[in-house]
């Protein structure tokens, strides 16, 4: 089974998704086939279907089906629970000193990344509660100001805090340096808010940053890159 270590592992991964859905679809198809086979006349009674209802082409199928679908959905809900965004983020906040802050400013049509250092906490003060002093909240970087260079290592938890200077954007890091590929992570950058996301890069390399929310005619060209160094 998958064990959740850090907030970065938010999803099942495409292969896992494929497996779980295949199982679900096979189970559902299997149920249909069961109904079809078990209601052939000589099998109808054996399978527990009432003869009178068989003649009227009506079975208990719906009842069993409702229970089956309900059970399947509850199973999927529990399966997905650890990856639920607030639950997963909680793990990272547990360990604030080791969280690397990257401040992101989005605008029509550019990305600016700024290194925000590591989160500071005064753990063990007063009631011993977790009190993060600098969580990286920031306003959009003013125009013309050059951001601090970013130095991210593979394996460390990164907290992206994104703000927008104008409209909604979609901050995504694709799984390669190609201009278009499946996203590894993404979040919306809503203007007027600090949009936060925890992520851990497993492999060093160059990754494409791409806007995933339509933001005007030059939206297709709102691309940047991030380099992840070896640990």
């Amino acid at each position, binding site marked *: 089974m998958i064990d959740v270590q850090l907030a970065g592992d938010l999803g099942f991964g*495409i292969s896992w*998704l494929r497996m779980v859905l295949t199982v679900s679809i096979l189970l559902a198809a299997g149920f249909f086939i069961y109904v079809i086979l078990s209601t052939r006349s000589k099998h109808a009674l054996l399978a527990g279907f009432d003869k009178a209802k068989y003649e009227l082409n009506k079975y208990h199928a719906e009842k069993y089906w409702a229970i089956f679908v309900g059970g399947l959905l509850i199973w999927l809900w529990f399966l997905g629970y650890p990856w639920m965004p607030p639950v997963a983020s909680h793990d990272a906040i547990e360990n604030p000193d080791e969280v690397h802050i990257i401040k992101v400013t989005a605008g*029509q049509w550019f990305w600016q990344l700024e290194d925000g250092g590591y989160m500071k906490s005064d753990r063990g003060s007063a009631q011993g509660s977790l009190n993060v002093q600098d969580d990286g909240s920031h306003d959009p970087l003013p125009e013309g100001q050059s951001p601090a260079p970013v130095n991210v290592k593979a394996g460390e938890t990164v907290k992206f805090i994104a703000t927008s200077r104008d409209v909604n954007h979609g901050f995504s890091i694709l799984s390669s340096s190609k201009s278009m590929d499946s996203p590894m992570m993404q979040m*919306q950058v*809503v203007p007027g808010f600090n949009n936060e996301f925890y992520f851990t890069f497993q492999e060093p390399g160059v990754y494409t940053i791409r806007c995933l929310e339509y933001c*005007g*005619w030059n939206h*297709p060209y709102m691309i940047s890159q991030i380099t992840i160094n070896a640990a």
Partner: protein
Amino acid sequence: MGETNTGVLHLKYEKDEGPAPEYLISKDLSDLTLMFIVSSVVYFLAAGSLAILMRLLQSGVPISQNQQSVGLFYTALTVHGQVMFFGFVSMLTIGISYYLLSKFAKKPLYSMMLATISFSLLNAGTIFLFVSGTMFFGAGWYNLMPLTFHPGNGGWNSLSAVIFLMADAMIGIGLVIFCLVVIATVFKGKIAAGVQKSEPEGKQYDDSHKNQVDLDDGGRIDLLPMVQIPSSTRLVSVLGISSWFPRYYRRAVPAVSVVVVGVFVNAAALITGSIGLFTQLGIGFSYLLNPDFDLNWLLAKDAWWFFGHPIVYFTLFSFLGAAYYYIPRYAKKTVPYDKWAYRSWPFYFVFTVMVFTHHTYMDTPNPAWLKMLAQVATFGVIFPSALTIMTIMMYIFRSKIKWNLTSLFLMAGFVGWTIGGFTGAETGWWGTNIYLHNTLNIVGHIHLVLLVGSVLFGLGLIYSIVPDLTRNKFGVSLGRIHLILTVIGGFGIALLFTYLGFAGFVRREAVVPQEFSWAMPWLFFFASTVGIGQIIFAYNLFRTLKHGQWFKSNGLYYAAAISTSLAGIMHLILVQYFVGFDSLTSTFFIVSGLAQIFWFIPYVRKWGRIWYTIGIVGTIALIALFVNSQASGEDGFDWKFILFYLVVGGAQLFWIIPLLLSWSKARFYAGIGCAISISLFWIITNSPESVVGVEAPYDDLSILIEGLQVIFIVTSVMVILRGGSLWPKKNITAGKDSDHGSSNMGPPSNQELDI
């Protein structure tokens, strides 16, 4: 149609379609329903051509310069989305819902005036959407504020944004009026109810349908008595809640027809969701009044989806309710009260309103409880959908269902909707949304649930409702062609979108990266397939409405009139780009545009040949000017070459008509000859430049075109060999002379209607 004929036609209808619902709706409502259907089909074609435009742009066809083509793409994206939602599917839903409600609640609508107003508002809103499109408004169909007012460099102006917001406001009010009419109709006065009588006394099985009363009326849910039910009980009944009661209490609540339940749940869910639309519009208008307001754009977004998800289900619920009636009807089942048909509806109602939150998984500032709710609601809405599918399957399973156009379309719709449900479960799961959000996978999902889901349901219902209202038959062969083309194209485009999303293609991208360009001609092919199917359908529909005669004698005139006036309107739109540029040019465009619009009148009033000739000569002159100006430009394109291809394409498209109308063999020989010569020409022009002096592109699209031409040749030869009909079985009896429209294609003649 004469009164004497009606009885015969009615018998004919019942023979083909099964028993017609007993209650006859008023003439006014009948006309209104037809108006809804016709205008929705018109907008379907218009918004569909925008889809074709997008596919052309992405296939690399040089329609305009780079920056303009990106803008054009996003404008088409915006107008396509909103018009399909509001002008087409919502319009169709409302028209059919009024019909179904009156028919199955067995009473007139609460107010015909309000119903007519909702029709006018929806039309006005849709026209405003097109107007904003001509001004290149392109903030996306979901109108994600503040982009609406912040297009960035070279985008649309704020007037177009105002027009767009006003369009949405008018549509929103129209939708609310529809909901109020439905709710008032359901709650005022008596309503047809009482199906619970079929639940037997004692300890028998509660869905075995052995009650004598049911056997008497054949279990027809359109034959219910009018009952006065107290409002509170009525609410429990029309939301389908009573079906979950224990049997004793279930019997105590009179059940209304499941079709009424579908329409009511639809209205109740949408009127709740429309709060979101008006919140979003309110935020938008306050920004227009004062841009310094500190507005919450996250709220605007959440509010939009609070409306944006119910509007998807809005296109579905009335049709699903109808499917619970039509499928058993064609499957010859007696299903007067099937509690499983009702049990989905309370879930649909509750979770449709809540499920919007799964659009905002990626909005991290949203509170955690909203995300928790998203997952529960997504699964909550999958549950009743799965129940519906199983119940419908059980009606069909081991029945001798009559596979006519309606039942075929409904079944195809259920297949598409089911696949769409699986993809929806993928993207609506919080562990996977992060990979799939804003990829083409989502676009695939929406086309699965809409284009090959509710649209197929709606089209299927048109095939049953229009004959019920007009007592005219649809052309069955044309209907089958429509079904095949829509299914091939619709599933093709939706599944390809889904696949591309998995492969990492981001949605709302005007610029296609190299690794995905292979898919674009395929998308164009599937989109055109759907488009051709709908043109055939529109022809079939209008012919049916007018019983053939009107269309035969006027169709060409109207087609010419509409095309010239559309061209004129577009010329006038062009003027704004020439203002302050060159007064001679803009004057020329204004004069020619007005002339083209004016020429609508001579054609519709049939003024005579002189007028037609002037129109033709003038148009040819305009085209010649266009070609000339393009050829002398510094662009690299050889426009004469492109014109040649346009003429060839037009000629090839024209050959649809002889095929469908089974014209004489001579025309088929001509068509085959032309296709062969075009294929040869293609081979020659695509040879290396040194051989022929000019080299045409040798790409996927042209290979596809050549393949299609070969298919055309082969099928034409088959048509000739089999006696000039696409459906040889019928033609054996219809006779082999096919010089005129064959009988199975044409409108029903008097002879056919005699029984």
